[in-house]
């Protein structure tokens, strides 16, 4: 009988820490992190953007085209009127 009583008390004593233990607050974060079990599409998004740049250019330098390249200036035509 005494043995049975001792064993019962020991079982209660062993179970007490389970009730007295405080909750581990840090473990809550772990649980929150593990709530997502698949990150495949986590915060998935798609966006489009564009830029259109149009330009009118004019070269103010003679014999230079708009790309900066020089050309040979054409010789002025000279009328040659023969005298006779």
């Amino acid at each position, binding site marked *: 009988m005494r043995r049975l009583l001792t064993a019962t008390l020991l079982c209660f004593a062993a179970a007490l820490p389970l009730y007295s233990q405080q909750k581990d607050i840090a473990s809550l974060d772990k649980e929150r992190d593990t709530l997502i079990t698949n*990150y*495949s*599409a*986590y*915060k*998935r*998004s*798609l*966006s*489009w*953007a*564009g*830029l*259109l*740049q*149009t*330009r*009118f*250019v*004019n*070269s*103010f*330098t003679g014999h*230079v085209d*708009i*790309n*900066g*390249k*020089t*050309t*040979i200036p054409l010789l002025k035509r000279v009328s040659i009127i023969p005298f006779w």
Partner: protein
Amino acid sequence: MVKRARIQTKANINDHFSANIMVNFAEFSGNPTNKVLENAYVRYTLNKHFNVQAGEFRPFFGIEDAMPVDIIRTLDYSNQYYAFGSNGWQSFQIGMSIFGDVTGPLRYYAGVYNGNNRNQPSDDDDTKNMYGRLETDLGTNFTIGINAALGSQAGSGTGSAWGGDFLAKIPLADKWSVSLSGEYKNGSHFAHYNASTLNPKPDLNEFRMQGFYVFPILRYEWHRPRVRAIEFSSRYEYFDEDYKQAGNVRQTVIPNFNLVFADNFYVAVQLGMSLDFFERDIPLTTTYTRQLGYAQLQIRF
């Protein structure tokens, strides 16, 4: 002329993986070989301290690489941007970068890339370009950056490039402000070295380019229902593509007037002049002193 017709798509697959593809359809006006596709990269973001990006993109080599692709506040990018781009140092390149915040306002960028420009099937030699950049904010309105790189192109051997830049915003009075940026760069000119027919051929270190620009913008926040802001700017640039050899200094001034019809440059009309002055004019080439007037309309969406 249609200078740029860019479409880009940004896709966030999840909070860590994203992708960006950008094309410029205006490049079909000429030979589109090795053109049109500009951005094509995948980014992995672990946190704000560590991002990995791989594919084709501009490798953060200077502020013109880092600024948004759809905000162009004057006629175009600088002459040094195009020269360093054609030599594989910046502009759109194929490779991999890591970047992020270090601590406080200090940011880092580092990476490797092929250095033979965009839309190439593979590297043109056995070595990769490597680069690093550090950038920090000194106060709320002043940012400075330094970058350095090692690289090669088409069997040229290893060359180097380095530079520094700053960006400042100065509030003047109610509705008035000044933005001031500047950049200096110095680097190997692989194209000149590879094309050189001098005998004996000088060392790669004798083929270098250098230049700087300052870009002040005076801005008035008009805040009318239709016209949101007016900007006056004038970028001055000094650039020498071959200062250790014959050299020929090119100075460019671009006075620009900018009417912003929608916030954040969603609609902007620009009027201005591009004034180029060469130390020596070379007939029948583009190395020739000239003046160009322009009117430019740009819309982003």
